[in-house]
């Protein structure tokens, strides 16, 4: 059994981490690979840090959650603190460079730590709404679990009905993927 790639993405409620994970999972599934995605959930409907656990591999995935991720993405200060536990020396830890005051909380034991300016790019270059798609690009670049084409196809499938009405949205999303991939490339 080839080991599955383990991905955790965490952020605040509105940051769309769950849909990023879901889209990647579906893209992988479409390719016929095995994907398992599970969100964290609890008693609070809002307010907690939102975490998506995603694994992609060639064979049936084992435990739905994992102790250490291959790539862990944190998109807010609380998310940084909450996801440290999933990091070890094999982990690539990605966080948004605009997050303030977390220097001391970064997982020092991580294999790599990448700060990417996703929030800034989304606001300044693209649109805040595609922030999570930038993250998606970053994740697929960092892990290689799905190709850019597959990611595009998955987004098309998910949001195609919206793109019909406003084709510019398609472009925006696709750009967001590419930019996300670039950000990781640069940070490496």
């Amino acid at each position: 059994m080839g080991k599955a790639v383990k991905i955790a993405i965490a952020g605040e409620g509105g940051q769309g981490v769950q849909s990023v994970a879901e889209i990647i999972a579906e893209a992988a599934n479409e390719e016929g690979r095995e994907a398992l995605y599970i969100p964290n959930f609890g008693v609070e409907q809002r307010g907690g840090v939102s975490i998506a656990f995603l694994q992609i591999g060639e064979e049936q995935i084992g435990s739905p959650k994992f102790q250490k991720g291959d790539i862990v993405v944190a998109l807010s200060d609380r998310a940084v603190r909450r996801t440290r536990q999933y990091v070890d020396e094999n982990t690539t830890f990605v966080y948004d460079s605009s997050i303030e005051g977390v220097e001391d909380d970064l997982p020092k034991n991580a294999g790599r730590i990448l700060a990417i300016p996703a929030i800034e790019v989304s606001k300044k270059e693209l649109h805040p709404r595609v922030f999570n798609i930038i993250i998606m690009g970053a994740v697929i670049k960092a892990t290689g679990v799905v190709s850019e084409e597959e990611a595009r196809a998955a987004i098309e499938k998910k949001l195609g009905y919206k793109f019909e009405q406003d084709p510019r949205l398609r472009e925006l999303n696709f750009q967001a993927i590419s930019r996300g991939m670039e950000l990781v490339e640069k940070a490496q």
Partner: protein
Amino acid sequence: MSVAYKVFSYEGEKGSWSVFPGLCKGCGLCKEKCPKKCLSWSLNLGVYGTPTVEPDMDECTACGICQTVCPDCAIAVVKKKK
């Protein structure tokens, strides 16, 4: 125990108006209820990273309704004594 909250305060003719971004969740209930419609989204972010509110102190009458309807006690209004 006492907890110190960051505060943004605004002074106006009728009184002072403060919001505690550490408490404001950006729900907008206050904004809807302001009889003067003088609250708007601010660039300051609240506890969940969503915008908090700020008043137009030229309009604000310090009536305190926004304080009353805030479920998180994120607003404090003090009316000036006449």
